[in-house]
C-alpha cells in the first residue's frame, strides 16, 4: 500500500507543476498593473521602479516563476497587495471557516443522500423512487446561491429564526456558530445530496441484483439485514470514493454560498481578491484549492484500495 501511495504521490508531481505554471501564468495575464495600483495616485517613477524591484517584476518570466515556485514550496505565497499580509497567513486564517462549512455541508449531504438512495433502490419503480429521483435532480439543478436567497427570505427575514448573514467563530460561541452555519451548510449540502443519492441508488441497484444478496434473501434473513449488512456494505465502495471527491467540489461551491451569507471564508476571499485585483491572493487560493483537489483524489484512490479486498490483495 505504501508503494502505491508513493507511486500516486509521484504521479501527482507533474500535475502540480502544471497547476503552478497555470496559476502563475494566469496571474501574469490578469488585467491591470498591480504596481501602479500600489504606487498611489502620483505614481512616482522611482516608487514604481522600487516596487518592481522589490517584487522581482523586472526579472524575466521563467526567473519570476522559479522564485515564486521556490517560495510556494516553503509556504511563502507572497504578500497580499491590498492588506500587505502574507498570503499563506491569510489563507490559514480563512481555511478553517470553509472547512467547517464544507464538513457540515457534507454531513447534510450524507444524511439526506444515502438514506434516500437506499430507499429509492429498494423501492425501484415505485412513486417513492420517482419522487426521490425528482428531488435529487432538483437538488443538482437548483442554483445554490438562489436557494440561499430564498432560505434567507423565509428563515431570516420572515420567521427571523436564523441570522441572514455573518459568521461567529466556534471558539467564541458554539451555538451561535452553528446558527450562522446552518443555512449555508444546508444550501451547500443539498446539491451534493442529489449527486450522492443518485450514486447510492445506482450502487445499491447493482448490488441488489447480485447472487449473494439473492442467497441471503433465500436464507430467510430479515429484509433490513439483507439491505444493510449485505447490500449496503458492498455498495459503500463507490459511495466512499464519491464522497471524497465531492468534498473537493464543496470547496468550489463554497465560493457562492460564502458570498450570499457573507461568511469570511476561502470562497469569499477569492471573490474579494478578484474584485480588488489582489493577484497574489487569487494565485495562492487557486493553488491551494488545486493541491487540495489532487490530495483528495489521492485519498479517494487509497480508500478505494483499502475498502476493496480484491484491489488490496492485488497490491
Amino acid at each position, binding site marked *: 500500500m505504501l508503494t502505491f501511495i508513493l507511486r500516486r504521490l509521484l504521479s501527482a508531481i*507533474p*500535475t*502540480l507543476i*502544471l*497547476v503552478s505554471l*497555470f496559476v502563475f501564468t*494566469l496571474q501574469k*495575464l*490578469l*488585467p491591470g498593473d498591480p504596481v501602479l495600483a500600489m504606487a498611489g495616485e502620483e505614481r512616482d517613477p522611482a516608487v514604481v521602479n522600487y516596487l518592481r524591484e522589490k517584487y522581482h517584476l523586472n526579472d524575466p518570466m521563467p526567473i519570476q516563476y522559479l522564485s515564486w515556485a521556490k517560495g510556494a514550496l516553503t509556504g511563502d505565497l507572497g504578500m497580499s497587495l491590498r492588506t500587505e499580509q502574507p498570503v499563506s497567513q491569510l489563507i490559514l486564517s480563512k481555511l478553517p471557516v470553509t472547512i467547517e462549512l464544507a464538513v457540515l455541508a457534507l454531513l447534510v449531504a450524507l444524511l439526506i443522500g444515502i438514506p434516500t438512495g437506499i430507499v429509492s433502490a429498494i423501492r425501484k419503480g415505485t412513486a417513492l423512487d420517482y419522487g426521490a429521483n*425528482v428531488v435529487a*435532480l*432538483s437538488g*443538482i*439543478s*437548483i*442554483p445554490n*446561491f*438562489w*436557494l440561499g*436567497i*430564498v432560505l*434567507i*427570505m423565509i428563515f431570516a*427575514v420572515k420567521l427571523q429564526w436564523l441570522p441572514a448573514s455573518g459568521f461567529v467563530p466556534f471558539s467564541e460561541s458554539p451555538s451561535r456558530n452553528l446558527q450562522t452555519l446552518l443555512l449555508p451548510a444546508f444550501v451547500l449540502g443539498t446539491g451534493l445530496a442529489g449527486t450522492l443519492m443518485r450514486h447510492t441508488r445506482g450502487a445499491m441497484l447493482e448490488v441488489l441484483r447480485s447472487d449473494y444478496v439473492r442467497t441471503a434473501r433465500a436464507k430467510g434473513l430479515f429484509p433490513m439485514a439483507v439491505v444493510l449488512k449485505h447490500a449496503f456494505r458492498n455498495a459503500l465502495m463507490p459511495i466512499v470514493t464519491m464522497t471524497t471527491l465531492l468534498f*473537493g*467540489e464543496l*470547496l*468550489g*461551491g463554497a*465560493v*457562492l454560498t460564502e*458570498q*450570499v451569507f457573507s461568511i469570511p471564508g476561502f470562497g469569499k476571499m*477569492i*471573490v474579494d481578491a*478578484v*474584485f480588488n485585483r489582489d493577484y497574489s491572493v*487569487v494565485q495562492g*487560493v*487557486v493553488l491551494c*484549492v*488545486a493541491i487540495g*483537489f*489532487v490530495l483528495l*483524489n489521492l485519498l479517494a484512490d487509497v480508500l478505494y484500495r483499502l475498502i476493496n479486498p480484491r484491489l488490496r490483495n492485488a497490491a
Partner: protein
Amino acid sequence: MTAFAPAAPAAVQPRLRSRFLQKFMGNKGALIGAAILILFILIALLAPWIAPADPLKANFLSVRKAPSAEFWFGTDELGRDILSRLIWGARSSLLAGGVSVAIAMAIGVPLGLIAGYFGGKLDALISHVMEALLSCPFLVLAIALGAFLGPSLTNAMIAIGLSAMPIFARLTRGQVLSIRHEDYLEGARAIGLPDRWIVLRYVLPNVLPPLVVQATLTIASAILAEASLSFLGLGQQPPAPSWGSMLNTAKNFLEQAPWMSIVPGIAIYVTVLCFNLVGDGLRDALDPKS
C-alpha cells in the same frame, strides 16, 4: 458500427436508431424536459415580439411594483418589467449554455481524439494538462478565468467553455481508447488510410453518443455557471438582462421586493432541470444495459 461491412450497418443503424428513439420517447421526464426546453428556446428567439415591454426602459413611476395584472411578475428597482427582462434574459442564459459547450467541445474533443488515437508522449502531455485543469474546481477556474478576461457575457462564455473543456478531452480520450483496437480501425489502418481520415470518418462517429449526453448535461452546468458568474458581477453587465444578473440586483431588495429574486431563480432552476432530464434520458436511451 462496422464500417467495413456496409450491408450490416445499413441494416443495424436504423434498428439502433429506432430502439434509441423508442427508449427516449418512453422516458416521460426526458420528453417533458425536451418540450419545456423547446418552449424556452422559442421564447428566447421570439423575445423582440413577445416581450410586453422594453426590458431596458426604466419607469420611475412603477418602481418595485408587486406582481399584478399590469406587471405579471412585478417590476424591479428601476421600474422595469420583470417578465420582459426574464424573456430577454433567456437569450443570454441559453446562449451562454450553448456557446460555452460549443467552445468546450471544439477544443476538448480534438485534444481527446489526438491523445487517445496517437497515444505516446502526446497523450501523456495532453492528459497531464487536462488533469491539471481538472484539479481546479469548475467554478473557481471559471471565476479566475472570468476575472482575467474581464466582466462580460462573451468572456464568461469563454471562461466557462475553457473550464469545461477538460471534461470533453478526457471523455473523448477514454472513448477512443476503448475502440482503438476494434477490427474496423485495424482494417482501416491496414489498407493504408491516412490517420486524419480514420479519426474523422471512423473514430469520431463512434465516440459521439456519450459526448452528446455529456454536452447536454454540461449545458445545464454552463447555464448554472453563467448565472453564478453574472450573480458575482463577472457575466452579463447591466443594464442588459440575464437571469444571474437579475438575481445579483434582487439580493439587495429581499425584504422590499422578494418577487425580484423568485422569478429568475425559478427560470434558472427549470431550465437546468430540463437539460438534466433530457441528458439523463439520452444516457438511458443510449445505454445498451438499460
